[in-house]
Structures are given as structure tokens and as C-alpha cells.
């Protein structure tokens, strides 16, 4: 789907963010942030607590409208759109605090994205058997096929499975751009080992992924590129190893002497 820009010969970015700013009262949560994202790339967004990472996600996905700046997806300006319209374009996100529909069985939680017009149109106008699709999707993110977890009330699932459920919701929407807000947080090493291959597989399928993370070691193993936020400013953008060498980044993470 990537378009070739004849003038420069570069591929047009899938997502481009320009001079995005947002203040909440006196707090400048995001200030003049801009970056491009190519199709198939895995971008890590890191930064200390309160540096504006989640606000950035909310700005891109329409849950918060920016004070100024532009977000373009496949060349189309989506700034100020309602979240459901943005989701229908194929931008899916997870939430930092996974809030599942607790009383429903895990697989029924996927009914909501599976019910969206996007899925219907991609499936050729028909929804098909949503329950079966949902169970397959859960297997894809690591719910064991023959086990009872798929049928357990989502409210009683262990943390690791909740995170997988969030990821499965993005898959259910058949998103092209997946934004994962602290997917790894609170996961044990064993749970991580289970979820990392799922992300590798998504990359293999050509999905574009943005990951907000605090667990840098795991992130750096899979990220192509990393941007660093501090007090709402974008202070670095580049390969994981290069970025961590920068003085500003060291200062932001370790504090200045």
C-alpha cells in the first residue's frame, strides 16, 4: 500500500505527526512533537513517568484533541476526528489500564471490535461467526486452545492474559497500525516470553507497531527505532543504541549531576 513519492524517491510515511501540542491547564503535556513512521516499522516511545507518552497516544487515536499540530495517516489528516472513525481506518490501541468487560467470558470481549463496520467491510459485508473468530484470535495471542481460560469471565483472568486480551482486541479490528500502551508492564519473564513471539509475528505480517514501554531491555530487542519524550518534548529519535548514548536522554533517565 505504500505510495512512492516521485520527488524524493522516499516512501510516504504511514503515520506522520507534526508539531503536536497539548496542555492540560498549566501543564504542557505534549510540546511540538513530530515524527514519521514508515509502514512495517516498530517504533518504541520511551520517557520517564509523566513525560507525555500516553497523551501522545491519546492525541493520535483521537481520545484527546490537540491544541495545535497535525496527525496524518496514509496522507489523510485525521486530527480532531472521533476515536471510532480513527479506529475504523485501522489504528488500534490498547489501554494502559486494561479494563475488560469483566462479567463476560474472555472471548466475548472481542465481540466489540468484531462488531465494527471495519471488520464487516473487510470480510465482504458479512460478520460471519463472531464467536469462532474470537476464539481463533485468542489462540493466536496465546490462549491455549483446549483450556478453559477462553471461557472464563474476563474479570477473573490473570494479568498476563488480560494483556493478551488487549492485544487480541487490536487483532480483531484487523488494524494496520497497532499502538501498545505499556503492554509489558507487570508481566513476569515467563509471560513476556509468551507474548514476545506474538509481536514478532505481527511484524512478520507487516503490521506497523508503536510501543510505549518502560521495560527498555525487552523493547530494545525488538524496536527498529526509538523516540524519547521528556516533559512533553521529543528529545531524541533514532536507533535504540544511538539514542541511549545521547546526553539529554541519560539526563532525563538518571537526573543531571
Amino acid at each position, binding site marked *: 500500500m505504500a505510495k512512492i513519492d516521485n520527488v524524493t524517491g522516499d516512501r510516504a510515511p504511514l503515520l506522520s505527526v507534526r508539531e503536536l501540542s497539548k496542555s492540560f491547564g498549566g501543564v504542557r503535556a505534549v510540546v511540538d512533537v513530530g515524527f514519521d513512521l514508515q509502514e512495517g516499522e516498530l517504533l518504541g516511545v520511551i520517557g520517564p513517568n509523566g513525560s507525555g507518552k500516553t497523551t501522545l497516544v491519546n492525541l493520535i*487515536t483521537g*481520545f484527546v484533541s490537540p491544541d495545535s499540530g497535525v496527525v496524518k495517516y496514509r496522507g489523510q489528516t485525521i486530527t480532531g476526528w*472521533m*476515536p*471510532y*472513525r480513527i*479506529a*475504523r481506518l485501522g489504528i*488500534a*490501541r490498547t*489501554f494502559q489500564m486494561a*479494563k475488560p*468487560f*469483566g462479567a*463476560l467470558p474472555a472471548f*466475548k470481549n472481542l*465481540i*466489540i*471490535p*468484531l*462488531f*465494527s*463496520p*471495519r*471488520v464487516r467491510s473487510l470480510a465482504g459485508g458479512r460478520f460471519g461467526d*463472531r464467536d469462532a473468530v474470537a476464539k481463533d484470535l485468542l489462540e493466536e495471542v496465546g490462549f491455549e486452545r483446549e483450556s478453559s481460560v477462553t471461557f472464563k469471565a474476563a474479570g477473573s483472568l490473570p494479568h498476563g492474559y488480560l494483556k493478551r486480551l488487549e492485544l487480541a*482486541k487490536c487483532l*480483531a*479490528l484487523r488494524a494496520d497500525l497497532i499502538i501498545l500502551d505499556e503492554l509489558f508492564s507487570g508481566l513476569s519473564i515467563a509471560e513476556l516470553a509468551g507474548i514476545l513471539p506474538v509481536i514478532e509475528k505481527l511484524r512478520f505480517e507487516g503490521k506497523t507497531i508503536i510501543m510505549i514501554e518502560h521495560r527498555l531491555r525487552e523493547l530494545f530487542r525488538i524496536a527498529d527505532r526509538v523516540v524519547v519524550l521528556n516533559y512533553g518534548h521529543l528529545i531524541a529519535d533514532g536507533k535504540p543504541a544511538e539514542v541511549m548514548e545521547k546526553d539529554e536522554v541519560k539526563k532525563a533517565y538518571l537526573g543531571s549531576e
Partner: protein
Amino acid sequence: MKERRKERIDRGIKARSDDIFALNSYREMLYVAVPPALPVIGLLILPLILPTYWQKVLISTCVFALLAMSWDFLVSVGMVSLGQALFFGIGGYLAGILDRYVGCPIWVTIPVATLVGGVICTIVLLPVLRLRGVYFAMVTLVIPLMMERIIEATGFLGGTEGLSGLKPFPNSWIEVYVIAIATLVALYSFRRLVTEDYGLVLQGIRDNDRAVMSGGINIYWMKAQALFISGCVGAFCGAYITHVYAFVGMPAFAMDFSILPIASAIVGGVGTFAGSLVGAFILVPLSEALRGIGGLRTVIYALCLVVFIVALPEGIFHYIQRKYQQFERWVDVDQ
């Protein structure tokens, strides 16, 4: 000191009938089949055995049960309304207008008032769909009061006199069975709807609207649809009552039609629809039975309401359902 706690265990039949439906005795089949059949049997037989006066009570019981279900449905989508009277009044006046000024027969006025009433209610509340919780409730509370005053002040649609001399039902059997069957249809449709995927999405909006939006679903469009469904049920009640009394007037927007349904749904058990029916079947006849004792009627009525709510905050239907499906016994707590 030994501590004890209550242990609840699903009855064997319940566990089996939930999953695989391998029922192998009449006893088990009856266990599963009787509760859903009770309202059908009850509502179809009651009109045959009740005296005329209590038939009228049955009619208003069913109307309040329907209003309670329409309230309950809105709540399950996360819209707490205090204005079922708006739906009721709009349906009532529409039927009155169609009868008086257009001259439609009764079998046209009621369906048209139901559907058009649903559309009007949706349009009226469209601007406040974004409001949640108590803010939505406030607006729905105010609009029917406003309608009442508009009609009073402008003298529009008969003003304080209302529209009288409308066509009644051909006979009292049709009258009572229309509402009895409508109640049954609404009860089973709503109970089915909330377990369908469509209903699950609607309930998702109540629990976490952000997650539903990020699933690519236009929650405002879904909420409008829910309002339409609920509005249709409310408007049907209004149109029906208009023809029962052969009259429609300002009382159609009265608070009674907002508050009593909510009381019924809460006493009966929110979220079950059957609870709305149970609640209405307790509160409305109770209010009629207390009519004889005069001045203290409201006090006694209110006391009953308080007792129900304090003793069974979960609602009567939830309580009965639990007793029916689970054993309870006291067990010692291991320290």
C-alpha cells in the same frame, strides 16, 4: 469463637442445564421450562379470571412494567433516565393527534405513534447523548416537565383540557390482551436482545465506552438506536393508554410515569427485565389495594418501598433466581 459463612452451591440441574441440556427426567425438564413459561401462563390467564375492576389494574400494571423495562434497557446501555414520562407523553399525544385531527382508526394510531414517538424521543435527546450519569438524568427529568408547561401556556393540543372523546378499544378483551401480549413480547425480546452480540456491545458502552470507541464503533449511533428502542416501548404505552381512557392530557407527562417505573425496576431487580415485571406486579396492585385506607396510603406505600429496598437491595428477581438455582448452607470458616 467459631466464625461461620454462607456457602452457595449451584444445584446440579442448573449446572447441567446451563451447558449441555442432557435432561433426563420430567423433574429436570420442568425445572428448566417452568420459570420462563410462568409469565406467559400468568398474563394470558389473569384477564380471564379477574373481575372488571382488577382487569383495569392489570392494564396499568402492564403499562408500568413496560415503562420499567424500557428504563431498564436504557440503564443497561449506561443512560440513567428520569424521564420515561417524556416517551409516554409523546406517544400519548401522537395517538391523540392522529385520532382527533387525522381521523385514523385505532390500529393505525398505535403503531404509528409507537414508531414516530420513538423517532421523536431520539431526536429530542440527541443533543444530550454525550452526557453521562447524573447529567443525562437531569436533562431527561426536565424535558417532560417543560412539555407540560408548554402545553399549558400555549393552549396547544387542547391545553389544560387535553384531547377527549377519542376512540376507545372495540371491547375490553382486545384492550387487555393487547397490553398483555405486548408485555410478553417486550419481556422476551429484551431478555434475548441483551445476550445477543448487539446487546453486548450496548452493555460495553455502559462499562467502558472508551474501549468500545477504540473498537471502531460509533457509540453515539448505538446509543441513539437504544434510545429509539426504549422510546418506542414508552410511546407504545402512551398511545395505548390514550385509547384506553379515550383521553390524553397534560398528566401524560406527569412524574408518576417516570418514577413508578424506576421503583418497579429497582424493587424487582435491575438488568433482568423480568424484575421490572415482578416489581410492577407488586407495586401497582399494592397501590390499588391501599386505596381504601385513605390519607395514609402514600405513607404505607412508601414504607413498603423502603422495606423492599433495604431488605432486598439486589431486587426480588435476583433473590428468587438465586434461591432457585443454588443451595445455601452455613459452614464453619477454617482459621
